[in-house]
């Protein structure tokens, strides 16, 4: 703020630039001064949303950090400071480590599967064939179907009392285990499968948009140079698509690691905690054990895991980008 304030006030700047708005560093986008009444209108339009966004960006971390060091039940309005006790309890609990491992397994299977599937289908829909716009529209539609509805459909189809897939697999004898949500060995793979089904359209839509923004001339130049189909993909498409791949992978990683609704509605963490993840543990600690302090400590840990993952991801992204160019 100090710098922007000082810059236009140097001797070189004309004296008429000294009005309130320019001293605040606010000018018109097309150049020019902001009049007093316009400044008032601007602030009225800008500040309410801005203040909410700043609060949303800062308050959760501050609040969680404060609560994480307190013993406090859901029915209390004040807590007592207990230092790092919450963290000690969490880190000593085997359930936490189980949930963390499950969460990592869940994230690092669903996201790569979605990405590979999404990329393959985006490349397919980028080709020219009759009716491809219908398919694109359909893909978008399946992305906006409510998560709760998606879980209803799958629980219905896989149910061991009425499920069409359950009886299909049983009668045809495909040689695959037919236990789905019921056994600790198959619950996680089933949840992974449904998550991929629900969210790969997101990948396709964004990757397709990325593909469409690649300059046609690059492909033509590659063709002139006699590049094979694979070489075109490897040296033109993939490098040009990297920024979009990076963004969608990052978004999906963050959202999958912190996903609550899909697993909560499919298995609620069961059977025997085999699909228990950190978000479910946070919810349970808060609303079933009524312990705000420990839930806050768990949230803080989840935030830190996320931060490490994001930094690591950025590092990896830069390495891959260097290699591809």
């Amino acid at each position, binding site marked *: 703020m100090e710098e922007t304030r000082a810059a236009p006030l140097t001797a070189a700047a004309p004296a008429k630039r000294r009005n309130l708005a320019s001293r605040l560093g606010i000018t*018109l986008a097309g150049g020019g001064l902001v009049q007093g009444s316009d400044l008032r209108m601007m602030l009225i339009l800008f500040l309410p949303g801005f203040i909410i*966004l700043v609060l949303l960006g800062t308050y959760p971390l501050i609040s969680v950090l404060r*609560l994480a060091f307190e013993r406090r039940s859901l029915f209390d309005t004040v807590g007592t400071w207990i230092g790092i006790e919450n963290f000690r309890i969490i880190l000593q609990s085997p359930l936490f480590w189980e949930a963390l491992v499950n969460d990592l397994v869940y994230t690092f299977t669903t996201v790569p599967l979605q990405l590979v599937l999404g990329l393959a289908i985006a490349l397919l829909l980028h080709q020219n064939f009759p*009716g491809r716009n219908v398919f694109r529209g359909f893909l978008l539609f399946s992305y906006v179907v409510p998560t709760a*509805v998606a879980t209803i459909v799958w629980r219905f189809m896989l149910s061991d009392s009425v499920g069409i897939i359950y009886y299909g697999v049983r009668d045809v004898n495909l040689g695959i285990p037919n236990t789905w949500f019921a056994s600790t060995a198959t619950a996680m793979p089933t949840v992974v499968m449904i998550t991929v089904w629900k969210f790969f359209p997101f990948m396709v839509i964004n990757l397709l948009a990325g593909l469409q923004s690649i300059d046609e001339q690059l492909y033509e130049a590659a063709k002139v140079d006699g590049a094979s189909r694979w070489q075109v993909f490897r040296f033109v498409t993939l490098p040009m698509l990297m920024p979009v791949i990076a963004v969608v992978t990052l978004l999906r990683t963050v959202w999958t690691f912190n996903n609550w609704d899909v697993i909560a509605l499919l298995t609620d963490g069961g059977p025997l905690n085999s699909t228990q993840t950190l*978000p479910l543990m946070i919810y349970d600690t*808060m609303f079933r054990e009524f312990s705000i302090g420990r839930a806050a400590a768990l949230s803080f840990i989840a935030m830190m895991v996320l931060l490490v993952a994001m930094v690591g991801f950025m590092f990896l992204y830069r390495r891959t980008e260097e290699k591809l160019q």
Partner: protein
Amino acid sequence: MNAAQRLSPQKVTRVRGMTRSVGYLAAAVVIMLVLGLPLLYMTVSSFKPAPDMYRVPPQFFPSSWTLQAYQDLVNISNIPRAFLNGVMVSSLASLLGVGLSIGLCYTNTRFRLPGLRFFTYLILLVYILPHILLVIPIFTLWLQLGITQGIVPLVFTHVSFTLPFSVWMMRSYFAAIPLDLEAAAMVDGATRAQAFLKVVMPLAQPGIIATFIFTFILSWNEVLFASIFASSESSMVISSALRTILGEQSGFYSWGMVNAAGVVATVPVLILFAFIQRHLIAGFTAGAVKG
């Protein structure tokens, strides 16, 4: 197949091109079936008479079509109430989110502000922020205010994602409106406020409507905050009602009702989606490609 190819004497390339198209089409049909069949199955199953539901092995199509499940839903579940509550919550949350972000998008594209970069990062951060990490701070806030149940806390909580999302999606619409148009109006004697209302707003309207519909869908589909703030009989919204019905499916509610509830929850999304399909693609890409 374009005209140039069709006219070319090399029929071999043409045949190869056609087989390739057919291959693509076949692959696309398979994908569509994988995505669509489960939803189709839910829909036809909601019209099955009760005995059909427990037939072994289950049949895809009903033996006869009935509206029994929907009648049960109206008579013994609180889906009708939840539907109305849901419409109310999602409309209000979207109205607040979009309303606030109109101001943000306008000022951001019309004025040069200090710390614009910081602002962009802030939007991105709040947009990415997972809901589960907001639950504890937001719930304790409502706890201190003494309101932890009902439509009011749910609407304001939903603004936590409708606001950043609509700024994210709507900014490009405002940025696309030329500055000259406003300048021209202001040269003709309009004040900035008049130029905003009479010139910018009408031009931004399609973008605003598309964004509103999208945030409505986001809010309609949201489960976590809905299960926390709208879990009582009177305050339930559609997604928390679905969760309850699904949870008690083996006991009180039949599978037919569960499927019917799923259809009822999807239909508004489908209708709204049909309106904005074209804009939706633009909105997504604005986020992904520029991000």
